[in-house]
């Protein structure tokens, strides 16, 4: 518990607080200049502005001076430049800062953007979703949690390996027998195949994986009560009678609470990122410089 709070206050809280400070007095918001290519698209400009703001925030909180990754990296750079230097690490780091190395180094830049991005996404306790919010989320985004429709069907199979050349004529005969069956179950008809049941409950995609597209299509058409086929698979020929359709549905929250919570948290992080970024963008005064 302590660590998340600490994390929030040290990182997320600072960035989030920027919104309030700047909102109170826009005039106090920082002013930055962002250089982009003359032909930069709107999206490229937006991205450049976003990064510039985040980097500026990271620097405002002195992460470019205090972050251990930045520190280690700059010291390593300095040792590369001055391999014989007798100075200790803090001195080398100070000299790197004086050279403004942190402003231009790509690793430092990536690290600061990473930390700022993580801070933007931090979820405080009061934004953790409760049951009501989860239920609302489940209802609003049913498509994300929907279970594929299933069909119950009867299945008669004729094996290619067992019947060989008589497969097609056997299939004609079987079609005739099935058409005369009425509502009776096809007990004892056809050949066995491991995993095959005379009555099954499956989704079209499961059937596609197991028997191929042709069989799945017949089932997906969901024509109730009529024997369809033969459909071809690598195993032989199949006849299908769909007897029940269980449509797609969204399970109750009790059943999928963990799944909904994970999905909602992903969304909250995105919302927070956008909210906080928008607040920062509003607070900043940005000059765009297009250079050839």
């Amino acid at each position, binding site marked *: 518990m302590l660590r998340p709070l600490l994390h929030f206050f040290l990182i997320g809280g600072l960035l989030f607080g920027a919104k309030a400070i700047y909102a109170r007095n826009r005039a106090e918001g920082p002013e930055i200049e962002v250089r982009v290519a003359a032909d930069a698209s709107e999206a490229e400009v937006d991205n450049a502005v976003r990064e510039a703001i985040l980097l500026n925030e990271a620097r405002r909180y002195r992460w470019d001076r205090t972050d251990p990754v930045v520190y*280690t990296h700059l010291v390593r750079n300095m040792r590369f430049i001055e391999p014989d230097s007798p100075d200790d690490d803090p001195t080398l780091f100070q000299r790197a800062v004086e050279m403004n190395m942190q402003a231009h180094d790509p690793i430092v830049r*990536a690290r600061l953007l990473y930390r700022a991005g993580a801070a933007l996404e931090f979820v405080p306790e009061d934004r953790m979703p409760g049951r009501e919010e989860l239920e609302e989320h489940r209802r609003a985004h049913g498509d994300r949690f929907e*279970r594929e429709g299933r069909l119950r069907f009867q299945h008669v199979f004729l094996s290619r390996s067992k019947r060989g050349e008589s497969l097609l004529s056997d299939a004609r005969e079987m079609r005739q027998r099935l058409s005369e069956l009425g509502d009776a179950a096809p007990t004892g008809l056809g050949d066995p195949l*491991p995993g095959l*049941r005379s009555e099954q409950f499956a989704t079209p995609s499961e059937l596609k994986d197991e028997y191929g597209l042709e069989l799945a299509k017949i089932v997906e058409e969901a024509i109730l009560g009529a024997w369809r086929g033969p459909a071809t698979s*690598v195993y032989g020929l199949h006849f299908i009678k769909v007897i029940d359709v269980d449509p797609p*549905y969204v399970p109750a929250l009790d*059943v999928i609470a*963990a799944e909904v*919570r994970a999905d909602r948290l992903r969304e909250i992080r995105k919302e927070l990122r956008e909210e906080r970024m928008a607040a920062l963008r509003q607070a900043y005064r940005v000059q765009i410089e297009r250079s050839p």
Partner: protein
Amino acid sequence: MARTFLGALTVLTVSLSAIGCGNDDRASIPVDEFGRCADFEPLRQVYWGDTHIHTNLSFDANMQGTRTSPEDAYDFARGEAISLQPYNEDGTPTRMAQIDRPLDFAMLSDHAEFLGTLKVCLDPTSASYDTPQCESYRASLEFNADPGAAEGVFITVNVLLSLPPQETRYPALCGPGDAACLEAGLDVWAGVVDAAQSAYDRSDRCQFTTLAGYEWSAGPGSANLHRNIMFKNENVTAVPYNYFDEPYVEGLWDRLREECIDADTGCEVLTIPHNSNLSEGRYFENEMANGDVFTAEYVEARNQMEPIIEIYQHKGASECLPRPGSATADELCGFEIIPFSNLAWTNLERITPPDPKGFLRVAYGEGMKHEASLGTNPFQYGISAATDTHVSASGFVSEDDFKGHGGAGQPNRFLPPPQGFPDIEYLSPGGLTAVWAEENARDAIFSAIRRKETFGTSGPRILVRMFGGWDYPEDLCSAEDLAAQGYEGGVPMGGTLGPQPGPTSPVFVVSAKQDAAGAPLQRIQIVKGWLDGDDYQVKVYNVAGDKNNGATVNLRTCDTQGADSADLCAVWQDPSFDSTQRAYYYARVLENPTCRWTTLQCSQADYNCNEWDFEACKALKMNQESSYTCDCCDPAIGLRPDICDGVSCDDPGALPEIEERCCHQVEPAIQERAWTSPIWYQPPR
């Protein structure tokens, strides 16, 4: 719609046979609070899964550039695409992967040893963040890190897992009492369990089942003694016990028993051994932690905790070792044998002969000997197979899209993306575990594994069913109710046949069908092992299909031709049964030959062996680079008869280096396969 209870009403319709004792608990699969799955089937159906998956939480995956998380691994298993290393500087991936068919179940098995350590090293607020070890680790992750230095850090971390048990310890950065890493590890483990909870489909559609787990990664002297720990549900031990916490497997089992099985918290757990091929022959040695030989108590514990074993994965097969003149080998034991004896030699690609004692078929014989003297067989393993992916690609077993292992083997974290093979030639895409269960839910899947009604495949979804009994009819293969008769008259795969009730030999029925997206079947074999006094023998029977069916594969184009058996079935009676001898029987189902992944990639690549320069390729490899010309023209790939024909491998070390490569060839064409859990026969005591 809640899960239905209809299935529960029908589950009692098939009674258990008094003849077999196959741990058959079809009448007792618990119903959880969400009820039954809509497609509950008392006679069981097959579900496909992967029980060995690493994500960015594993130190080795993480250091090899894997960025995908447990959530990504579950997404992948359900059919979504994920990104693969190497990544560009801006974080965009250069490769993607997507499974062709979703899995039914999955268990993540991230290495438990450094779960907390990685977190500590990546958390700027942790006290250990600034330690030199953490700095080295983070430096090795940098985009422009030196590959050689990064590999050095990788090896340094790995060494901690190779220390002898009495010297194991957390890294120094974990601080006094290892508290920093232990505490951080608890958070990560809680996250792993949460991710499994979130991805588990508890609706009545039961589309995807997750099981929480981790890997205990003991590797003394680099001998692989790893176990995957599988929990049945969200009730888990608070600590994911690792090699540093419990350096002996007995200690691990004790912890799991005390804090899970006996804790009355609803916790259930089992452990799955793997990669016995890389154990220097130590996986099945007759020795406990204190150096004494097995006791009855130990043997019982092992039998209870470890129902199944992983027979195949990225790092090779552990079924049997091809050895001329061996009583336990057969002509098909050469499948995906990697020429290394332990983990370190695999990482360093140093050819070392594997120890035959590390292979399952030898263990089965040893196990029967222990049973004869101690009353329980410690190695009465059922069969599973898995990937051991270190790039979160759960169940990604496709031979024609192998992207590499991502842990040991060739690192792919640095740009440019692989220009030749994505991994060392001896690794392969791994396999899948199939379970026969009533429904796709945790209780049913876990119970199937516990009773060993499982089989493993080398990747394709070859479906196989096997029963053993005493009086199955000869025409059982034609019966619509094969499964009902199978259960009623005997035991399924993984079960045990008790003493012979009459004068007949046991009868086995094996029914198999090919993967609809794979190659046709060539044959079904039954592998029988038995104990004649102290003499252990093995015989392989071809019971369906035909070895000489004429099916062929063109190694240049990988086109296949020939016979086409989509399904095979046989009822087979042991012709040389002796009711006084312990025995086991497992089925091996073989596909027609197809190209191995290396051959497939070469068939699609642009390469020219006239331009091949062995020394130049070696130099390139030292720099962690390659090309298809280097890879495909290497004699070890099996496509160079111009170099290898006529090479005698009696003494490979005496050959020129190029010719020596001929003696450590992969099979350019393979026969993908399924292995069932054995059915065991126990004579009267």
